[in-house]
């Protein structure tokens, strides 16, 4: 009986294999990038979004800002069977008026940053008589149907900063 270990047969890879591998990888990368590009949106803080209104045109993008006020009943309207909520957001002092389809999520609150998905609209509001309280009211508004509320550890007011302003400096700064 032959008990010697089995010898590994040397197998030559077919010549076309490297070319096929390159084609498959290239194809996969092209599909991947195509999916990435078609599923990406510009992300602009409110100030930059205002600057690039004309450039953005009808394109959907994400807008970052903080609600100037919380939403009350008098900011919500049912128009043609759809519910719309009117509010304004700001970033770096620049205001943007927003019309949101549907009720904002639970976490929505004054001063808590939100990311809105939608597009610019110039012209009359769904409720043409509405005037945004503390808003821009410049004839442009951001139509959104998706609101993401940011939640992080910097949600609160800057208490340490406030204390410092009142003359209570951190010990480390004093030394």
């Amino acid at each position, binding site marked *: 009986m032959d008990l010697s270990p089995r010898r590994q047969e040397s197998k030559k890879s077919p010549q076309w294999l490297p070319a096929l591998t390159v084609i498959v990888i290239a194809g996969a990368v092209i599909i*991947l990038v195509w999916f990435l590009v078609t599923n990406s949106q510009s992300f602009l803080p409110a100030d930059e979004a205002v600057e690039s209104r004309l450039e953005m045109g009808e394109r959907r993008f994400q807008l970052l800002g903080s609600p100037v006020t919380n939403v009350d009943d008098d900011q919500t309207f049912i128009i043609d069977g759809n519910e719309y909520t009117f509010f304004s957001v700001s970033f770096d002092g620049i205001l943007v008026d927003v019309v949101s389809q549907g009720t904002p999520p639970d976490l929505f609150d004054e001063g808590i940053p939100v990311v809105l998905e939608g597009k610019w609209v110039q012209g009359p509001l769904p409720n043409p008589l509405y005037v945004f309280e503390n808003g821009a009211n410049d004839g442009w508004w951001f139509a959104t149907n998706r609101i993401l509320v940011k939640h992080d550890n910097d949600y609160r007011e800057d208490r340490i900063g406030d204390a410092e302003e009142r003359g209570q400096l951190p010990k480390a700064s004093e030394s």
Partner: protein
Amino acid sequence: MNLVIGSFGIVLALAGALTGAVTIIVGIRSPRDRLQIIGARYAWVAFAGMCLSAFAMQRALITRDFSVQFVAEHGSSLTPPLYNVATMWSALEGSILLWGLILAGYLAVVAKKFSKRLSDPMVSWALVSMFLVMAFFALIMLGPANPFESFNPPVGYDGPGPNPLLQNHILVAFHPPMLYLGYIGFTVPFSFAVAALITGRLGEGWLLITRRWTLFSWGFLTAGIILGAWWAYDVLGWGGYWGWDPVENASLLPWLTGTAYLHSVLVQERRGLLRVWNLSLVCATFLLTILGTFITRSGIIASVHAFSEGGIGPWLLWFFSIVLFAVICLIFWRGEELRSQGGIDSPLSREGAFLANNLAFGGFAFVVLLGTVFPLIVEALQNRQISVGAPYFEKMSMPIGFSLLFLMAVAPILPWRKANTELVRDRIEWPAWGAVLSLVLVVLLGGRGLLPLLGFTFAGFAGTSAMRHLTLSARRNGWKGLVGRSNGGMVVHLGVVFLAIGLIGSSSYISQGSYSLQPGESIQFSESTITYVSSERLSFPNKIQERVQIDIDGSLLEPSIERFTASGQLVPSPSTRTSPVKDIQIALLDPPAGENKSIVIQVTKQPLLLWIWVGGFVMLMGTVLSAIPMQKRKAGRNKQRVRLSGKKDQEK
């Protein structure tokens, strides 16, 4: 006092880590074994240091010592006791402290576990690697993420407490520690991989040493991810559990490469193949934990969900780059020695299926990584900010998920080396019937849509394949047929099948709507009658709660909105009716307002969602069962098996 103890602890940990690393390196270079043994003892010094620091932080939080800036910023006299403890990991500095504590714990356990092999260069170099990682995190704690900065609180000062979102669900106490136990646990196999590269002992030894460490790290990471999804579902009130946010992706990436590694390691153990691949995977898993931490903590990518941003980004990026460079150099240095003897005999074999599985997991990780960092690439090249939406991840992950389910069904029935058609036909019979029956059952129950039906079919295929394996094993060995790596692995597969069923059902057949209701008013929602019964306002020391009672087909749900006193922030507490068939979740969007106390609610129905959590639990059970060693076969039985030929032998 807490400041002094805490800072001293971190300095002690840093000193212990550096001294330990240097002592062991000197010990390896000199003929004196004793230095390696002494060096390992510094693991306990580092651990003691981190315990001291963690103790000081907990003491500061519990006693509301606002002279510690972290407590002043994130603590509060109004925070309930459980959440007071969890405040430590609610923000950057404290979470790095938890990271350091767990890492020092792993370091001490490794030193203890290998106490009889401390003079073995493999163990010594692994300890050196761990010491250096420990030193890096201790340095971060003395630099940009110092949890013990001092503050001079004004008289009567009270902090705001942690984000209220982190104060209204018990899972906050468990999700981050579980995640960290997983992330940091991968430091152990990584360190042994580095040690194997340095010592040139590139055989299967280091794999066997780190098998259980990897398994438990993976189990903890799985638990952390599932608990995180559960928390998001139960707290955020948006009806979802996974949003493909960079923070979530950061936890998924090491899980994907870790899962790939757990499979490919079997090929190396059994056939001696995929050596470079395994080393790369284990190093990639560790590196992805660092990269993920960088992505989520640096604020470099916009996320709606970053609880711990700060100035540690550049530190983490440098650390990541240095480790990556070192690993690449080591792999190139050992290039020739890493070459595997032989190759895969046939694609239709267990190793062939594992290779395909690894390509799928690797591809999945690449897709998620690319989608996560694509905004950075675009910003660097075009100087504009973009965001990659969930549809990209969903479209890309679906075919990969289906192929993984298919491979989960096929791999366990294939023998090593080469399968013949007759054998495959024989073994695939049960799973194939399982797939057909699943499809028929789902269609009869009203399931529609090509992709969901395809998903359920693959799930049935994979589930029956795992059940077949477990049934045969249990028939041979009784309940012991459920333990051991292979059998435990099949239990994990069953968990993945449950998870897949939950994911497919809940995402494919979700229905959601918002309704304005007055007391006593009813609406019809997806075959359910929903009635607004009443409302009440409750006051607690730290919050005011607006709670409403909603009747759904005879059972009462009580969603609420809470306004936290310290911050004024509104936090929802949705209420869910769960059953194996469907979840109905009600979130209170607008609390009772006006004289008629009208409310706005969001109702979300998601079929089969419960199976996601069941799947996660079964996966954890399977992980534990995998770690239990199988009883060794008796010699006599082995002899008998050797004499057997054909079908039974191939089943082994």
